[in-house]
């Protein structure tokens, strides 16, 4: 049942994703790409779980740590860079 429901969630999210991005003005394409790139860093949650799950220094723990660092770069950098981009847009509307 869990798996089925996860698939259900996946399908609904896919439709929602499509509906949300209809007719974005072209000037927003780059920030939108960058912003959703930051969201794709959600894999940080997986990385955290992988880092925390084992107690010994197994390969899987090191992989988790590497994943954690990479995902954090993606998340933090992604949000900041998007914010900087959008700050530019903001200014011109004053």
């Amino acid at each position, binding site marked *: 049942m869990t*798996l089925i429901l*996860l698939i259900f*969630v*996946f399908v609904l*999210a*896919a439709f*929602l*994703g*499509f509906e*949300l991005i209809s007719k974005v*003005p*072209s*000037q*927003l*394409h*780059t*920030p*939108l*790409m*960058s*912003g*959703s790139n*930051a*969201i*794709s*860093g*959600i*894999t*940080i*949650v*997986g990385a*955290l*779980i*992988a880092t*925390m*799950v*084992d107690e010994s220094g*197994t390969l*899987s*723990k090191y992989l*988790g740590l*590497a994943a954690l*660092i*990479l*995902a*954090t*770069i*993606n998340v*933090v*950098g*992604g*949000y900041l*860079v*998007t*914010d*900087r981009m959008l*700050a530019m*847009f*903001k200014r*011109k509307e004053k």
Partner: protein
Amino acid sequence: METIINIAYIAAAIFFIYGIKMLGRPETARQGNRVSAVGMLIAVVATLINQHIFDSWIWVVGGLLIGAAIGAVAAQRVQMTGMPELVALFNGFGGLASLFVGWAEYDRIISESLAPAAFTAAVIYLAVLIGGVTFTGSVYAWGKLSGKLGGPPILFPGQRLFNGALVAGIVLFGVWFVFNPPLYLIFLLGVVLSLLLGFFGVMPIGGGDMPVVVSLLNSFSGLAASAAGFVIENNVLVVAGCLVGASGLILTVIMCKAMNRTLTNVLLGGFGATVSGGQQAEGEMKAATIDDAYFVLESARNVVFVPGYGMAVAQAQHVVKELGNILEENGAEVRYVVHPVAGRMPGHMNVLLAEADVAYEQLVEMGDVNPTMNQVDVAIIIGANDVVNPAALTDESSPIYGMPIIKAHEARTVYALKRGRGRGFSGIENALFFRENTRMLFGDAKQTISQLVAHFKEN
């Protein structure tokens, strides 16, 4: 406890949904990004409250700090024009992270001497595969965008066959692996092949198409995260990853449309490698001096600027704005016409002009200017080429035929600023530069404009 975490995950997903929705509208975009960042924070904190955090806190805190520091510094340091490649690089990291998450889970299962179920094996393989392609593909795209790997597409004989073989190999190993999950070697081979696929898949695509590629890879990195979510049965990973996957895909399609290309066309690549047909331009380019241009501009009442990639190269946006101000004070109506695909990333010109504080009302879309272009006294083309190429309207054999363009050629006088006879991204000749009413101002755009500004100030 489990319940609280999951409710937090649901909240995080709602924040992501609102965030993406708000990112799509200019007025709310910046807030939207912050809303989605809050969602991410919620998800991370919720993950931390449970789990064996006490055994591993050094690892966790260390990883978070290192990653955050690198990310923050990179994001702060980067120049405006360097942002697209940085996004590509970040995206690659995200993909690699998903690869590692899938791998870590696989290794954990194997090291407990268990064999993952077929479905789990399949999603592990998917997470690793998509993550791998995203990683090398994005890094290559970063190299091309930043000029480190050269812009033009690299083609070699049998390239498509080779890439096809890579795909076939990946599928083969995938099936093999799903039916024999304990085969670590097969798994690793799958990883290697997917890394190769990302690299060779992006190779034949020209530097100018990289924004589309990055957008597609961004969609992939979302799917990789979603697959990783299936691996560890984590709902927020599935939802957020899939949201990014779907919205990234549709964004990619929208971007292709703006360039009048299809996605397949972009991916099969080779665009811009060979100079494709089209008639040769007749006539010759007529160079003008700064003096000439000054006198014409002095008396012009209606001026439009058409910025293009060259303005970004020359970093001329600030002087352009200065010239614009001077012309306005001089009594002319000044507008900036932005083509959706001018430059090398969507919204490139908007970002640059916004950086130079050009007022929102002066930025106009081509659809609003084209119908009245014949009432424009002077069109100043600043390093634009393809986006003002009339062949897109008239020459069916041209590779850019059908792309909407800014009809600068219909203005009374056209001044084109470029360094020489260089071609644009598409690599084709532009008849506009040879027309009767066009005058060339050769040289770096920033210098040319600065000289014009100086002239105005002197007189």
